[in-house]
């Protein structure tokens, strides 16, 4: 009996099992594995059992169940869940309980999914290894000494370890695809605007997009079909009707033109990753695809462009965490009638702060971790007077060049196929002392994010040591169906 999304939903819909039995099994698996893997930050035990009973009661009344009937789906802890705490991997939100659900959470509930809990992540989604979480790193179940990738590391591991058949993550510069690649799962970043971000804690608003992880391509397609679609509460959400993502799985790839960008097979690419990805491309060619070289000339500037734009947006978005309306508040001791936030070593500026600003400063100093502070300060710098044109505006122009590269390539091909990450999962601790080397590990996922394009990571042949490798398929905007067709064809060929 398979435990994938489609199979579980079918069994619950037909009454071959109950949602309650599925929920109990998922909770059992989480209880057995989570202490070691640290994938879940909050297990919503009572809530998921209640959801399961309601779904079973609905079926007993003869009502038709939704497309995700009784399917356990883990939620990245950046997604607001009414009544269940949402930390975003940060101390500043450690005890925050949202008063509303994210739109994607509402849609999953309406589709009769089970929501067993909230998954660990890099703090505010800022990281590529899950090591910036305030609640400890997630471990990669394929090799416990290695990072699961990030920032949606907990969601990837929930699926990779079989705790849940699917999960939601968010992808700003690769935060779904890279952990999918590191853990041997399927991860989808939809077209920018395909899925509502209402209720997603914002990181970089011109890039953030919610998407699914699943144990197989078809399962990911079904979850995407549930969460996609227009939402009045997110003005960036597109009106485009959801296509038949699931129907695209299993369609013929004959005649599809796939582009292989030379810039993605450059220096720094692990030879085993290259061999695995090239073998997958050869197989797709054997199945009837046309393979063509394409050029994405500005790829190497994606890291610099991204780290200017994303940190600028983050510095603005994270201004809301100030100890007033929600989350942590730290009020520094007042010395001699003046709030001395930094104690004896405080800079002259802080000595003159009002009690309110001293509270802001102390709250944010205590609440944010090192990586978040680094990015807020970098973002503040690139937006500050005298530097705005040279960094921020310049990066926005280079973003246009990166988009034009893709526009030109998609004039010749239907999809672009390349590695998801230049290496398999790296060791925990390997890159934490050098932020720039961590940023460079995102080089193959950032361009599609900057261009707003849909992309999927699907497992290809692992390395000799058994580490997973991800094949990335990038499609033109709103052409997720092409991406699903190619990914499912490769998945079928591999197994």
């Amino acid at each position, binding site marked *: 009996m398979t435990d994938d999304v489609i199979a579980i939903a079918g069994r619950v819909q037909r009454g071959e099992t109950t949602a309650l039995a599925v929920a109990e099994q998922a909770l059992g698996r989480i209880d057995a594995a989570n202490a070691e893997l640290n994938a879940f930050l909050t297990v919503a035990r009572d809530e998921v059992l209640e959801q399961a009973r309601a779904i079973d009661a609905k079926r007993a009344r003869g009502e038709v169940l939704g497309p995700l009937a009784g399917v356990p789906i883990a939620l990245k802890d950046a997604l607001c869940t009414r009544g269940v705490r949402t930390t975003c991997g940060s101390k500043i939100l450690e005890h925050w309980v949202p008063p509303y659900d994210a739109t994607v959470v509402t849609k999953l509930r309406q589709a009769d999914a089970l929501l067993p809990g909230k998954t660990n992540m890099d703090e505010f989604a800022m990281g590529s290894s899950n090591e910036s979480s305030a609640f400890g790193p997630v471990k990669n179940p394929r090799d416990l000494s290695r990072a699961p990738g990030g920032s949606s590391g907990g969601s990837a591991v929930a699926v990779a370890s079989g705790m849940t058949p699917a999960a939601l993550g968010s992808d700003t510069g690769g935060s779904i695809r890279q952990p999918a690649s590191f853990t041997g799962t399927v991860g989808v970043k939809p077209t920018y605007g395909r899925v509502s971000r209402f209720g997603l804690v914002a990181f970089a608003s011109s890039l953030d997009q919610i998407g699914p992880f699943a144990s197989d391509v078809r399962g990911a397609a079904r979850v995407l079909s549930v969460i996609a679609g227009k939402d*009045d509460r997110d003005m*960036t959400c597109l009106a485009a009707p959801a296509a038949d993502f699931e129907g695209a799985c299993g369609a013929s790839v004959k005649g599809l033109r796939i582009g292989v960008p030379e810039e993605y097979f450059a220096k720094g690419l692990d030879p085993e990753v290259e061999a695995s990805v090239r073998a997958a491309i050869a197989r797709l060619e054997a199945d009837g695809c046309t393979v063509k070289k394409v050029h994405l000339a500005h790829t190497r500037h994606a890291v610099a462009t991204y*780290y200017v734009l994303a940190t600028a947006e983050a510095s603005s978005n994270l201004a809301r965490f100030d100890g007033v309306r929600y989350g942590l508040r730290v009020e520094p001791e007042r010395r001699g009638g003046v709030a001395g936030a930094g104690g004896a070593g405080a800079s002259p500026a802080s000595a003159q702060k009002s009690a309110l600003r001293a509270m802001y400063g102390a709250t*944010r100093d205590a609440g944010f971790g090192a990586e978040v502070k680094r990015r807020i*300060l970098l973002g503040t710098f690139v937006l500050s007077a005298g530097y705005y044109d040279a960094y921020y505006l310049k990066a926005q*122009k280079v973003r246009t060049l990166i988009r034009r590269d893709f526009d030109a390539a998609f004039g010749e091909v239907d999809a672009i196929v390349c590695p998801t990450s230049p290496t398999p999962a790296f060791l925990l601790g390997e890159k934490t002392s050098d932020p720039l080397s961590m940023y460079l590990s995102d080089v193959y996922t950032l361009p599609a994010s900057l261009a707003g394009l849909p992309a999927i990571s699907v497992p290809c042949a692992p390395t000799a040591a058994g580490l997973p490798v991800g094949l990335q398929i990038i499609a033109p905007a709103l052409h997720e169906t092409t991406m699903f067709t190619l990914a499912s064809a490769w998945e079928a060929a591999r197994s």
Partner: protein
Amino acid sequence: MRAPTRRSTLLPDMDLDLEQLRHMAVLAELSLGEEEERRLAVEIGHIVAYVAELDAIDTKGVPPTAHVAGIEPAASEEGWREDVVKPGLSHEEALAGAPRAEHEGFAVPGFVE
């Protein structure tokens, strides 16, 4: 902050010293410790030096991309939606997460000396 390894022709002075880092911290409302300030100055200096590679790219006549999707609803088929009042959070729900609430509002420390 350490001098970036790469100099920009566009920028008269890219050396971010400790004073500049402190200024950014004031703008970002972050009260940092001295040791943290020094560490961040070095780390951010390295990243700034790296992103300065953008300066060498020819972007003459290239418009900036702020956003990839059409975010001007007036330009879309549907236009702006009607301004309809819909139920939102109750007063109690909105205040439930506040670290301090008084007199049915968010309580803040003094900001007038």
